[in-house]
């Protein structure tokens, strides 16, 4: 039970016009200037246009892909034939994509994490750290086809003959999963370094000090405290790098040979394959597109669709990983 007591109205002459809230002011509605309106409309348009492009890619590839994807193309080896119905499936490129991605990230992840740890936790002498940083930026900005040509030059040297074919006369072929994987790791490296570094920088100083205060040295702190805390950052960087590797064509065409099938160098089970040539989904799409040798657009659509699925799955993985990351400590 409550009563409402009305206060007497304020005595004295009211000063000025009655109060109106700002939002009720009719002038408020027109307070938006034309320029602002155009800006907002343009922002809306850009956002919607981006959604439209993304949707168009997905829907188009979905329609084209589903038409031509079936169990046969996923499980059959490619055959050399001008007739699309007889050119087989793309099992070898799928395996090739998988092998190359795993190989590339297996090199890039430990090296990248090592660089990031050195940059954030040591970084001395400072000029050297700056040089490393610009090195990473240069690598990140280099087109992959330049890296591919450079890789071919390097890996054709006799020194690296163990990584690929050696021809009769002693010339080193320079093309294999090993050499392509090595250059692929270079394009994934900046992404791993960047994400790991960001995660390490997000750990407050007092967490490191808490470990030192227990009598631990820097190495133990990095291994048992910092790297576990940066796990999700490392995972994000590795997934981004894998996406880049799976989507790259230039290095595959130049350094992997883009052969129709996986060509093992010798009979040693896995090592022989890694020293041999092969292809990936990207080079398969390229070769089977109307501009390639194969000219089998149906197969190209199907392979492109599978590749798109792989990359989208990787992006979902990144989302899942970074959603688990939350600010654990206050600075």
């Amino acid at each position, binding site marked *: *039970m*409550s*009563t*409402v*007591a*009305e*206060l007497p*109205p*304020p005595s004295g002459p*009211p*000063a*000025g*016009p*009655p*109060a109106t809230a700002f939002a009720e002011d009719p002038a408020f509605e027109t307070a938006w200037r034309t320029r602002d309106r155009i800006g907002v409309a343009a922002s809306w348009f850009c956002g919607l246009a981006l959604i439209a492009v993304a949707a168009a890619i997905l829907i188009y590839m979905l329609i084209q892909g589903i038409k031509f994807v079936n169990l046969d193309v996923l499980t059959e080896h490619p055959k050399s034939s001008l007739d699309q119905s007889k050119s087989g499936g793309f099992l070898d490129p799928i395996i090739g994509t998988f092998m190359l991605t795993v190989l590339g990230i297996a090199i890039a992840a430990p090296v990248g994490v090592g660089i990031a740890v050195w940059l954030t936790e040591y970084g001395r002498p400072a000029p050297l750290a700056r040089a490393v940083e610009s090195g990473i930026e240069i690598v990140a900005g280099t087109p992959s086809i330049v890296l591919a040509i450079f890789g071919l030059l390097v890996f054709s040297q006799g020194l690296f003959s163990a990584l690929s074919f050696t021809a009769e006369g002693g010339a080193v072929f320079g093309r294999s999963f090993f050499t392509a994987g090595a250059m692929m790791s270079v394009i994934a490296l900046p992404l791993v370094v960047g994400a790991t570094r960001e995660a390490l920088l997000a750990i*407050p100083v*007092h*967490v490191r*000090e*808490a*470990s*030192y*205060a*227990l*009598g*631990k*040295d820097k*190495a*133990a702190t990095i*291994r*048992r*405290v910092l790297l*576990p*805390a940066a*796990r999700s950052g490392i995972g994000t960087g590795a997934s981004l790098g894998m996406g880049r590797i799976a989507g790259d064509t230039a290095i595959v065409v130049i350094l992997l040979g883009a052969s129709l099938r996986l060509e093992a160098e010798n009979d040693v089970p896995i090592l022989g394959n890694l020293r041999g040539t092969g292809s990936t989904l990207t080079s398969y799409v390229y070769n089977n597109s109307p501009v390639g040798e194969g000219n089998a657009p149906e197969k190209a659509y199907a392979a492109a669709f599978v590749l798109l699925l792989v990359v989208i799955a990787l992006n979902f993985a990144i989302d899942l990983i970074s959603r688990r990351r939350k600010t*654990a*400590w*206050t*600075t």
Partner: protein
Amino acid sequence: MDDLTPPPVRRIILDNMPEPVVPPAATNGHGPVPEVVHEPAARNAVERMRTEDLSIAYGQKLAVNRVSIEVCAGEVLALIGPSGCGKTTLLRSLNRLIDQTPTVARSGRILLDGDDADFLDVTLLRRKVGMVFQQPNPFPMSIFDNIAYGLRERGSKRPGRKELEPRVAEALQRAGLWEEVKDNLSGPALRLSGGQQQRLCIARSLAVNPEVLLLDEPCSALDPISTAVIEELILRLRTQVAIVIVTHNLQQAQRVGDRVAFMYLGDLVEYGAAAQVFGAPQAMRTREYVSGAFG
């Protein structure tokens, strides 16, 4: 806009109006300080640590100026003073954590049980002089591994869980956290509440059996209830380890401190029993600070 009249105020009168809340006269720990709340520890004065003429500078800036102070077993030493007075720097020098800062310069001696801390192995020193920070900072691992981390060698995972279980349980019991976490030792430490995390950090320091425990404003990130729990814990622990606590909160210094050191602009202005520093301060600066004139 100054010609607008405020809208008329309507006051709702309830049948049983609650008494208006009167804010306490002393806010933020500054103000007239009440009588000593707890019995001061018996002065058996077994000295654990002492500094002799300790000066610390960051670059050109002198942060601690010729401070000589002793830390005794069985007592809580509270370091008080306004921000930037050097109390945290003094605290961090006791376990040589300031060595991490590249620009720091130091003179004077720090003694642990009569040995010069500079000649002790830093690992040994830091195991004997534990530290708890302002922000709770458990490591991103399980509750058990947080405690076991300090007990293990360097970065290794040995000795294993079986061997360490009794010592981990003992540390958690001493920090008053055992009952709350005993069924969840494998759970991630970062899921605990803020107060629990801070007690875990205390347990982590206690696990290696330190002689001195340094607390750097351990309650400033916590709510009043967690603060009370931790203050109680400090009073219980003072019989086992010598405790040095840095605090901005004068009432906290009053509640837990046996001896109080007041610092101002790097100088140790006053150092004595809590009752004396708060009740009958000798220096004018101290008198002004404990009465809330500045801070």
